């Protein structure tokens, strides 16, 4: 699954650590999501969407599978 997390984080000038604190996850989890190595659960995807005041589908888009 592709996502715009890094782009949105950069727009707010937040570090991965800052975003991790806001989402109550580890910095490594933020990094894994940004690099596409981990797809977040639905509750975490909602937290991300709420934080950026966007819809989930405008942040995450399904991959080929």
């Amino acid at each position, binding site marked *: 699954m592709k996502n715009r997390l890094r782009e949105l984080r950069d727009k707010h000038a937040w570090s991965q650590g800052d975003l991790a604190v806001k989402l109550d*996850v*580890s910095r*490594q989890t933020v990094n894994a999501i940004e690099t596409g190595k981990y797809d977040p659960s639905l509750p975490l995807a909602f937290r991300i969407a709420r934080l950026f005041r966007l819809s989930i589908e405008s942040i995450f888009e399904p991959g080929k599978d």
Partner: protein
Amino acid sequence: MPRFTRNQYRLQMAAAMAVYVALMLLLWPTVRHEVSLPLKVALTLLVVLPVVVFIWLMARQVMDSDELEQRVHLVALSAATAVVAALSMAAGFLCAAGAIVLDGDILLWVFPALCLSYSAARAVFARRYGGLGCG
């Protein structure tokens, strides 16, 4: 209950292990020679106490982890359980068949074997997600 940081967990686990080592060095040599059975049982279980605290801290750390960390913990613990189960079954059958001789002391190695397998499996699975530190 407040959530501990990774360093706080490390500190508390190190403290539990320090108590364990101290008890093993100071208490354990006298336990085998203790003639009173109730005292022998009490002293033996006293040595186990810091290990129970260590296990409780491990469980609490897993519960405090985020969803990706919990996923890695689950996969690593599953792999470690599979390795230790296979090894203990193999050793058990070899012993039952008379191919090797083992005594009850071998059970002391089950928990360390589980911890080692878990650490190795966690390092491997965490790498898949770009590494999750060594907590």
